[in-house]
């Protein structure tokens, strides 16, 4: 099991981390159904990735709370904050990953943040888990360099861990091979939490 992250050391307290916004502000924006529209948030890919993660965590927590509402306070106090603190480290755009293209007068790149968003979206297709931190290890700024993906995941009580982890590996592998040209050599999945409502 993980230990709670020091709140003072997490990026949610760094306004520059989310293009000048905090996780609380984005959470409020989501609560208001994103109305009235905020052009700064709507035009920021970092904020959009963060909003997608917030929606994901909320959906997962709602699922768990539905399973047993009487455990609400315990779940909210620990699980929700830990997951948010972990994934908030991944919102930034990060390094630029070269994308092959046929022209010498064009440079096409994908941000590391976009790839992490893709990995999380792949995790959404696997029942019974939530992807936490994910990192891309390797010289990703060099085209074709071998890359190792490391993913932390939380699995819900009752789900077979090996099978669920394998499904996550397969989902990530399929998403990356279909949508990117990354040379992925390994996908390491670490299940660090099991949640029982």
């Amino acid at each position, binding site marked *: 099991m993980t230990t709670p992250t020091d709140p003072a050391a997490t990026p949610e307290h760094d306004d520059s981390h989310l293009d000048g916004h905090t996780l609380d502000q984005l959470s409020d924006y989501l609560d208001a159904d994103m109305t009235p529209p905020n052009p*700064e948030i709507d*035009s920021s890919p970092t904020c959009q990735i963060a909003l997608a993660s917030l929606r994901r965590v909320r959906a997962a927590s709602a699922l768990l709370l539905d399973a047993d509402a009487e455990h609400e306070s315990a779940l909210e106090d620990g699980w929700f904050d830990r997951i948010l603190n972990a994934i908030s480290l991944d919102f930034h755009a990060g390094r630029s990953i070269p*994308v092959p293209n046929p*022209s010498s007068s*064009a440079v096409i790149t994908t941000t590391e943040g976009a790839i992490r*968003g893709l990995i999380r979206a792949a995790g959404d297709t696997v029942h019974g888990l939530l992807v936490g931190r994910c990192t891309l290890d390797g010289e990703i700024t060099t085209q074709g360099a071998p890359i190792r993906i490391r993913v932390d995941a939380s699995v819900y009580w009752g789900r077979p861990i090996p099978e669920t982890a394998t499904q996550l590996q397969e989902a990530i592998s399929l998403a990356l091979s279909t949508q990117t040209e990354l040379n992925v050599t390994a996908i390491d999945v670490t299940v660090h939490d099991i949640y029982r409502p």
Partner: protein
Amino acid sequence: MTIDAAHDTHGIADVVKAVPGITSLYSAHPGLVTLASRALEKAAATPMIDGPIAVTDTSIKIRVGIDHTRSTAEIGTAVYRAVHNHLNTLPRQYDQTIRIEIASIR
């Protein structure tokens, strides 16, 4: 006035948005997304802070979000070709590098 890439940023933006698979066209001006409107007006004194496309003497920068229909290479190349073809219709030839950043996939 000679129409070139720097004077046709909205035309480039329209071309990019029309490429299948594009979900968002983000500002390619670093840091400007968080500036208040007054600061934006001040920044507009710098050439080409008009719309999301950033044009300098050496580059034409474009930041996009894409969907899951095609690969990053396919959509990125489609954006390049669309912009390249559009720029070739302008009276003044462009010689900048077209830089396309895929900032989100969803």
